Each structure stands twice: as structure tokens, then as C-alpha cells.
């Protein structure tokens, strides 16, 4: 009987666990924002995507982002075409995702700005790299607003830039992220 007891406990836990997962509070949005920016003496590049899917799970402090790279809108049409055709190859690799966690406490019941650090894996162009960035989470009027900014190197994601245009593209892109999720119970 003594040997069976732990097994029963485990079994009970196994039964409870999924329910536990599904009851987790999840905050989400489908209109998150991700933009990337490059500034050089020769050319300014700006690309913005307003159709970013994001989920935050405050209970576990996990978060995930997913976007279609074709959703990036450039100021110049031709640049957008080259970005998709020649750089990120969006026909082959249509999605970019981020999956990670944040550290720091955010009290969803109290309005305020909370400083956190986001850590996780960013996948782009079929390459996954760890990313860490300081971020802010703001609780305001029933919404959780998350904002972050970090740098990313195109070469890290196996995106090759021909030498003839290398000077027109910043070595490090500035990436800005903003999500606004209504706080649901």
C-alpha cells in the first residue's frame, strides 16, 4: 500500500494538471505591433507590421508572439518586394515567432508601469536565436500594454545582404514591439 500511494498521488496530479493549464489566464491580441528600423547615411528603412498575434500568460509569466513576415509594410514598395523575395524569403518561411518568459512582477489588478525583462527564442528565416530585452508592462484601464525595444542583426538569421547594398542597411536593426491586450478574467 505504501508503494501504491505515491502512484495514486501522481495519477491524481496528472488528472488535475491539464485542467490547471486550461484555467490559466491568457491575455491576447491580434493587432500587436512590430516594427524594425535601419538608419544609415544612404538610406532609412522603416517596416511595420500591425497584425501581430500575441499571448501573455501572467500566471506562468510566459509569452508568445507570431506574425506573418509578409505583413511588414515598407515606405517603399520595391523595398518590400525585395525584403520578401530576396532577404527573408517569405514564401519559404512565412512566419516569424517569439516564445519566452518575462521576469519581474506585474500586478494586473493595479494600474501602473512595471519594468520587466523578456527572455526567449526569436525565430526568423528558419533560424532561432535567443533574445533578451528590457521591456515595460503597463496596466491601464483594464488593459495590459507591453512595450520592448531590442537590436537584431540580419546576418544572425542567415539573411545575406549583397555587398553592393550593405552600406544602405544598418548592421543592427532596431526592433520595436508593442502589444495591447485587454485584461480578461
Amino acid at each position: 500500500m505504501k508503494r501504491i500511494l505515491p502512484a495514486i498521488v501522481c495519477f491524481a496530479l496528472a488528472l488535475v494538471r491539464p485542467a490547471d493549464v486550461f484555467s490559466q489566464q491568457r491575455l491576447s491580441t491580434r493587432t500587436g505591433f512590430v516594427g524594425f528600423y535601419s538608419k544609415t547615411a544612404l538610406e532609412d528603412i522603416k517596416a511595420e507590421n500591425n497584425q501581430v498575434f500575441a499571448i501573455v500568460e501572467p500566471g506562468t509569466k510566459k509569452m508568445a508572439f507570431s506574425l506573418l513576415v509578409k505583413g511588414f509594410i515598407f515606405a517603399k514598395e520595391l523595398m518590400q518586394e525585395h525584403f520578401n523575395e530576396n532577404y527573408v524569403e517569405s514564401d519559404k518561411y512565412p512566419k516569424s515567432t517569439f516564445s519566452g518568459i518575462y521576469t519581474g512582477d506585474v500586478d494586473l489588478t493595479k494600474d501602473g508601469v512595471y519594468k520587466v525583462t523578456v527572455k526567449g527564442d526569436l525565430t526568423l528565416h528558419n533560424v532561432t536565436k535567443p533574445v533578451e530585452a528590457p521591456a515595460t508592462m503597463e496596466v491601464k484601464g483594464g488593459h495590459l500594454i507591453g512595450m520592448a525595444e531590442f537590436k537584431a542583426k540580419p546576418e544572425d538569421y542567415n539573411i545575406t545582404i549583397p555587398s553592393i547594398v550593405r552600406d544602405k542597411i544598418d548592421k543592427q536593426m532596431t526592433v520595436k514591439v508593442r502589444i495591447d491586450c485587454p485584461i480578461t478574467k
Partner: protein
Amino acid sequence: MKKAFFVILSFIVTGRLAAQDNLLNALNDSMSASKTKTYVKGTFKATHIINAQSIEQPANGNLNFVIQHRFGQLNSGSYNFFGLDNATLRLGLEYGITDDLDVGVGRSSYLKTFDGYLKYKILKQTEREEMPVSVSILGSVTNYTQDIVGKDYLNAKYRTAYSAELLIARKFSSAFSLQVTPTFLHYNLVPTVADKNDVFAVSGGGRLKITKRMSINAEYNWLPSNQVVSTVRHDSWSLGWDIETGGHVFQLVFSNSQSMLPSQYITQTPGTWGKGDIFFGFNISRNFNLKKKR
């Protein structure tokens, strides 16, 4: 009993791992459920497949400067350095009034010809196959101004020809695209009564990308018989190699046509590839963004 314990333990562990992935999976599920319409872009790299216009056109506020250059015939002998001593040139400007409407003007040294056109996108191929093809309509007018001795009666009206084309293109994959273009030509003046003033032809062209920035293109212009009878002519056949860098597209071309305008290369190509009547040349296009979005 121990066995059962581990089985159950592993259940809990895998259950937890699945929970970790769930967040991203949940996102991807809701992403594939949401249907956003996106249009296929980059069916061809340039606004010309080789001689014929492609479905591509400059976007709103973009100006495209096109230089089309053909050397002389390859079989013109070593005295003419196999054609490189001679040149035919067309300079063109194309401007996107909107993303769908494009206007162009050009001047060719061949018969000192001026041309102008309007191109409008009727249908756009979409990513999710709601629309399988892109279709544009192209209307152009050409007027040649070269003095021809003994033909003083050739007034501006007689020197003018029109063309109406329906460009039907499909990007089958990121590497492979095809275009079929039924073309109607109207000549205000033809050499003899046996020749038709209204001519119907079909152009076909395609591209195959060999690297991300290079492609091989081919183009064929078919003219059904009994339309042009008084002059010797052959169907125009061209091969090209596109190289793209930033705002430039460079196209190396081989063609049995010297002219670069449909009213001329479709009906007035006297030579054939077989006899070496091949014109080597290139197209260069440079895109200028005149209007900033937002």
C-alpha cells in the same frame, strides 16, 4: 508497480512540456484561422520580360527609367565586330500614378519612333488562391518619324499604330512565372491591300529564378498567318538573363528582333535565330521613389 509510477511520472512531465508549447501553438492556430488577403508580388523582376511588357509596373509615386539597348546582328561579320558596332536604343520613362495605373513614354532610335502607353491592373493574384492570376490591360500608341525618301505622303496619321494587350500572368512558385498576352494591333497604314490593318497575335513569356536575384527569361511572339503577307517576317524569339541589385534590374538579352515595340517586333522581324540574325543587348531599369508613403 515501480513501472507504473514512472509511466505516470512521464505523463506529468510530457503534459508540462506540451503546456509550454501550447502558447505558440494556440497562436499559430488562431493565425491560420484568420484569413487576410495578400496579393502576390514580384511575378517578374522587371517591367519587361524581354521585349514584351510584363505584368509588373511601378508602384504609386515610383518612376522607372528604362534603357533598352540592342547591338547589331551577330551574323553581320567581323568587319562590324559581330554587330557590336551598331546600336538601337530605346529610352523609356514609366510612372505609377496609382498602384494600379501606370503611364509610360519612350523614344526609340529604330525608325525614330515615339511611344506612349497606359497600363492598368484589373485583377491581382492572391496568396490564398482566391484569384489564381493577375490580369492587366495595356494600351499603347507608336509613331515613327524617320524620313523615308520618296514617301512624302507618309503623314503623322499613316505613321501611327496602336496596340491593345491583355496581360495574363501567374506566379506558380517563387521561382517560376508565366505570362500569356493576347495582343491586338492596328496599323493606320499597311504596305499592300493584302496586309491586314488589324492584326492579332499572342505573346508568351516566362521566367525561372536561378538564384534569389537572378532569373532566366524566355519570350515568344506568335503571329497567326495570313495577316502580314507582303513582307518577309518571322516570329520574334528572345532569351534573357535578369540580374537585380537594389533599385536596378539589369537584363542581358538575345533576340531576333531589333525593335523593342510590339507594333514593330511582332510584325517586322525579318531574321531568324537559325541564320544567326541575333541581336545581343541589354535592358537596364532604375527605380526612383518620388513620393513617400505616409
